[in-house]
């Protein structure tokens, strides 16, 4: 082309000044995140977090978790509810993160894999058939058995994606429940899965003749298992296979054309996911010392999804954070004797912190003042108008000072609780539709109404409350941080 006289000479690209990139050039666009806020404490935290090597993060997590039984979770009950179950949820989340987070396959059959692992352990390590194989044999078998349906489902992912794959996998999960619960085929004179009663009295996890029976022992074993699986999955993700999983999630066609066998990769992602699920399902069964099909229903699936979505799809650290938050919220909302007042503190502190996020700061002050003021006004008005019977009730579990602010009737008055509840929903919808200062002003009374509903209705019904709070938490997350707490923001260019 040098012999063509009419080719225009290439203008020299403008040299970038030493001080910093010019406005509008690529590196200026790239440094956008550094310039646009993320200052303050949160920004510092985010930068520090990113600068820590991943191996150090894992070691820190294991170190802190290993110390917990000695200072924070000293009681047996706490260690079981907070410690053991958080670790289980981390394990469950790690597996689901492979096919959903990395390979981008919407897998709604994951709980079936947990169930398969659990039943495999129950059949091979219990008095049910009289087979008492040790855990070092049973756990790998549980993983292997869970891989079989994973392969079959992986083949269906050759042609099915998105909603269609979700339907097929969900069907598989339901079919598994029916199989375990109703079909219960008779093998060697006994129902294979024990029907609706499940299989009771499993062996404790026994490795080379040593049975792990104490809660503390189980905790440390599970911590080790979670750490090893997390490290293995991390290394898998940082290899050519992991890159190919993510590439086939981003653009299957381009991945295929760029030498990646997308179908095979999808099957392998399913196998990885379900093998991890088989392992932790078996451990779950061993910890509960029994397995019933109802343990592996859609409720558990939704909880595990909440874990990985809250933490951030595709992030191992996100799975850990999501599991801690979700499990602790669950445990706190349960009626419990160990920490009776904790639930209330959690509720109020969360609301106060959320409002503190309002910018600029004086809006938050207005909301605080509005909330407190509307409380005293309403309390005084109701007391004067309807008489002390409407305001002299006491809060559950102490905190008597609250009953001078929150209206708590001494006895329930007809449908008042339902009316309050519906009123709260209406108020929230109203706040959502208002704009600007009107919203700020309406927030105060609405929050007060929330406190009233909480004290009168919600704290009495922990099951429903947990679900409502979960819903609210996920909706809030979707609006403010759709990628989850530690996930990478996902961008589509249209």
């Amino acid at each position: 082309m040098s012999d063509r006289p009419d080719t225009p000479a290439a203008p020299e690209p403008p040299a970038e000044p030493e001080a910093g990139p010019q406005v509008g050039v690529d590196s200026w666009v790239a440094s956008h995140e550094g310039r646009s806020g993320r200052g303050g404490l949160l920004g510092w935290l985010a930068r520090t977090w990113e600068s820590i090597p991943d191996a150090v993060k894992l070691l820190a997590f294991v170190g802190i978790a290993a110390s917990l039984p000695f200072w924070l979770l000293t009681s047996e009950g706490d260690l079981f509810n907070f410690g053991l179950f958080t670790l289980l949820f981390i394990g469950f989340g790690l597996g689901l993160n492979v096919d959903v987070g990395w390979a981008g396959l919407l897998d709604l059959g994951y709980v079936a894999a947990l169930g398969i692992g659990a039943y495999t352990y129950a059949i091979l390590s219990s008095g049910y058939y009289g087979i008492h194989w040790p855990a070092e044999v049973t756990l790998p078998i549980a993983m292997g058995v869970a891989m079989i349906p994973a392969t079959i489902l992986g083949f269906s992912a050759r042609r099915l994606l998105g909603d269609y794959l979700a339907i097929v996998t969900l069907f598989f999960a339901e079919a598994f429940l029916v199989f375990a619960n109703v079909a219960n085929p008779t093998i060697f004179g006994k129902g294979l899965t024990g029907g609706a009663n499940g299989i009771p009295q499993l062996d404790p996890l026994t490795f080379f003749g040593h049975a792990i029976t104490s809660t503390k022992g189980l905790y440390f074993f599970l911590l080790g298992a979670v750490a090893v699986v997390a490290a293995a999955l991390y290394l898998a993700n940082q290899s050519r296979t992991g890159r190919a999983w993510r590439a086939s999630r981003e653009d299957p066609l381009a991945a295929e054309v760029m030498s990646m066998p997308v179908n095979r990769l999808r099957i392998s992602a399913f196998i990885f996911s379900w093998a991890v699920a088989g392992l932790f399902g078996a451990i779950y069964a061993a910890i509960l010392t029994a397995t019933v099909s109802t343990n592996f229903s859609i409720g558990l699936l939704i909880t595990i999804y909440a874990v990985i979505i809250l933490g951030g799809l595709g992030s191992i650290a996100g799975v850990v954070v999501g599991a801690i938050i979700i499990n602790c919220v669950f445990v706190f909302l349960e009626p419990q004797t160990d920490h009776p007042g904790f639930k209330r503190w959690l509720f109020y502190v969360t609301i106060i912190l959320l409002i503190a996020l309002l910018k600029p700061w004086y809006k938050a002050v207005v909301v605080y003042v509005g909330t407190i003021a509307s409380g005293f006004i309403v309390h005084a008005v109701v007391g004067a108008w309807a008489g002390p019977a409407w305001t002299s009730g006491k809060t559950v579990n102490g905190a008597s000072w609250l009953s001078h602010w929150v209206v708590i009737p001494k006895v329930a008055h007809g449908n008042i609780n339902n009316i309050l509840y519906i009123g709260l929903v209406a108020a929230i919808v109203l706040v959502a539709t208002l704009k600007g200062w009107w919203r700020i002003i309406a927030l105060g009374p609405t929050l007060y109404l929330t406190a009233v509903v909480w004290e009168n209705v919600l704290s009495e019904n922990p099951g429903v409350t947990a679900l409502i709070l979960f819903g609210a938490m996920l909706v809030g997350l979707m609006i403010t941080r759709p990628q989850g707490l530690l996930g990478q923001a996902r961008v589509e260019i249209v």
Partner: protein
Amino acid sequence: MSVAPELTPLLELNKLSMSFGGLRVIDDLDLVVNQGEIVSVIGPNGAGKTTLFNLITGIYRPDAGEILLGDESLVGLSPHKINRTGVARTFQTLRLFLNMSVIENVMASQYGRTKVDVVRAMLRTPAMRREEKEIRARAEEKLTFFGQRLMGYRWNQPAYSLSYANRRRLEIARAMATEPKILLLDEPAAGMNPTETHEITELIGQLRDEGGYTILLIEHDMHVVEGISDRVVALDHGVKIAEGSFDAVATDPRVVEAYLGTKTTTTK
């Protein structure tokens, strides 16, 4: 052109045909791309140019005809196998792995060129570490080909943060990393400003001269086509209507007709 190419055919299409329903998109097409050549495919919108690329890369299967790379037939192979025989492409509508980092995009496409399985990856065996090092080195080498454009701080950024022109360059780098014998570039200059277009034109020349790739190119920008093509093939309605040097094809009455219409249809 300055380099006199030895005429060994690399890519050969024989009597290739493809229809969507009743619509013939590629009709009895013969095309040869020789080793070391830059061949441009031009033609109005809907002429079947991108379909041609989709046929060669295995996204579509031809109804009839042969596609040969060297001695190997590509018909019926799945796209990832075709890539491994030595065909890589870019897309007209960019299809990067947007939420992966720039360097990961170029590392990911080496999947077919590498072997270490996932079990060895989890154990980080010496073979795995060595291969991983090679993958990274090759990715860096391909990115360095683009000079300052894709250097340094950009490597660890997500691909979506790149400018449009850089995304086009990254797609070429990703295709190069599969170590192909022939590169299919689908409108590499689309959406670029004149400076960038000029740059990409030079770059395509370098790809052939320094990288040693044979290049089949779809392009609408006639400056690009004129600047680098050894040969130009004009398509219309899936039929080859002209072939030869740029000047010959550009003045061919059938090509002019395909782009502008016949005289009888004009009002004056």
